[in-house]
């Protein structure tokens, strides 16, 4: 699952190395518009609908946080 998330992130912001960041938001790699694009990609890739109330920066700050978010919203690894 983490490889696929990394691939999606790189598709959205190819100029950044997400594997080397501990906090994508604090490191300026994802802004609110990137997060909106990421939600669309994740919804389509995992055939889920991420809860609106879950769309907060901390849920997109790291690979672990995104993975937890996907699992919570019913994604299959």
């Amino acid at each position, binding site marked *: 699952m983490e490889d696929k998330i990394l691939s999606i992130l790189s598709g959205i*912001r190819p*100029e*950044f190395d997400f594997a080397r960041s501990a906090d994508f938001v*604090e*490191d*300026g*790699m994802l*802004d*609110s*518009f990137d997060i*909106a694009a990421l939600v669309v990609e994740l919804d389509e890739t995992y055939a889920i*609908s991420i*809860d*609106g*109330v879950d769309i*907060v*920066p901390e849920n997109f700050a790291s690979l672990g946080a995104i993975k937890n978010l996907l699992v919570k919203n019913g994604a299959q690894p």
Partner: protein
Amino acid sequence: MIPVESPRFVLERTDAVKSVSRSVETNFYAGKDVVESWIREGSLFHEEIGLSSFFFRKDADFFHLSYVSPSLADLGGGLAALAGRPEILTADIVTKTAAETPVLDVFAKSGFHVYNSLVRLCRTGNPGGGDQGPSGDVRFAAAADAGRIHEVLDRNFDRYAEQIPSTGEITVDIGRERFLLVDKDGAIAGLVHFELTGLTSHLRRWFVDPRFRGQQVGSRLLRQYFSLSRKAKRFILWVLRTNDNAIGKYLHYGYSVDDLTDTIFINKENMRYGR
């Protein structure tokens, strides 16, 4: 319209909309810190219409309108009820430029009018430059400059489309060294307002007083901006789609047009941009 008194209220209203629909329509992306600052200022208000929650942020002589709606149909009903209000209401809708955007149609069919739009420009990679702070006649703004900066922004930028910061917000950003100035003849000849977050640098405003154009004030400011943002790998800015002059300059500095558009709607037809 009632004042919002806690961030928790915003979450509760969002949850209430979410409880009736899994898919939520919204343009309310403000983070907790920002919401808290609006509540402290007493500038955030709320109204429920149908199943939708509308948030109003007071700014000068108008309100920025945000919504959380369970559906486009419910949003349209709420907007139609709001469009005829005496208050000036504006709403920012950010969409992919080339994508189908039904929410724009909902606004247009509910008594709101396109005021203008902003396009996002991006640049990848740093143009290089020194690693010092401001030099020559470029300096960081001081707290005492906040009022003058606000006057310059209010006079030269479009309040409905370009979100002019309050004097308080300017003071906070001065403290964070986000304003660069050049003074000439006792006036602000030019300024840059920027925000560096990790690897991304956001150029919020770049302005040169027409009286001082052609004197390289703008290029000195921008060089210092790039120098101070030397750790950034991505540079972004928003500019009025109608500002061909500025867009041309940004393209010269290596920016290119991104795929996001911010369409600004207003509820007063006679106040549409250019009228």
